[in-house]
């Protein structure tokens, strides 16, 4: 399984903070494609979002980053701390 986390406005838009999906994707892009297949709502928020921020195992990552079973993949908007 892959553990997926959504933060801030993403969590609110998508109506969930986290979920687990079978680990059948080799990259973040493939995972995003699966999530986009759920409908426009998901596609616009994540796959089509040029400001999408990604972390894999709590390190900043990109759509090309490889993922495997047990990984934690997080999606969030640009950060605004400080």
């Amino acid at each position, binding site marked *: 399984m892959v553990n997926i986390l959504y*933060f*801030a406005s993403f969590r609110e838009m998508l109506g969930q903070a986290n979920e687990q999906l079978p680990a059948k994707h080799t990259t973040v892009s493939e995972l995003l494609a699966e999530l986009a297949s759920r409908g426009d709502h998901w596609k616009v928020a994540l796959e089509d979002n040029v*400001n999408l921020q990604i972390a894999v195992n709590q390190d900043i990552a990109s759509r090309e980053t490889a993922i495997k079973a047990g990984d934690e993949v997080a999606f969030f*908007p*640009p*950060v605004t*701390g400080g």
Partner: protein
Amino acid sequence: MADFPFIKVQREDFDLTTEVAKLRAGHKNIGAVVSFVGTVRDINEGDEVSVLELEHYPGMTEKALEKIRLEAHDRWALESSMIIHRIGKMLPSDQIVLVAVSSRHRENAFHAAHFIMDYLKTNAPFWKKETLPDGEVRWVDSRVSDKEAEQRWTK
């Protein structure tokens, strides 16, 4: 060498004098301490702000802040450094974040504190949500100027 937590993500407020004393403890050759305190402004994007709420990504936050802190130690000769970032609800004028850095000579402490703040703004997973006086709640937009500030430090 003092052994205190260099990174803290907490709901509680902090006291500048107390934290700087921890930063300095055990370092006898410090000549310069630069502290940055970020506070909640009462106006953002032209609107009055009643409440600010900070959300973060537990685990990644601490990891990201420590990475930034160590990068500062790689770039400049520092004696010690610390970052405290608050989460949860805050009111205008409340303290949000503290970055404090000590060094022998001032130049290094100034650059390092500024660098840490610029990187924190674009690399640490915190998100701000503000409540306006009429009850409207909105997520704060990231600033292009913050991204530009970060990029100035690219080696």
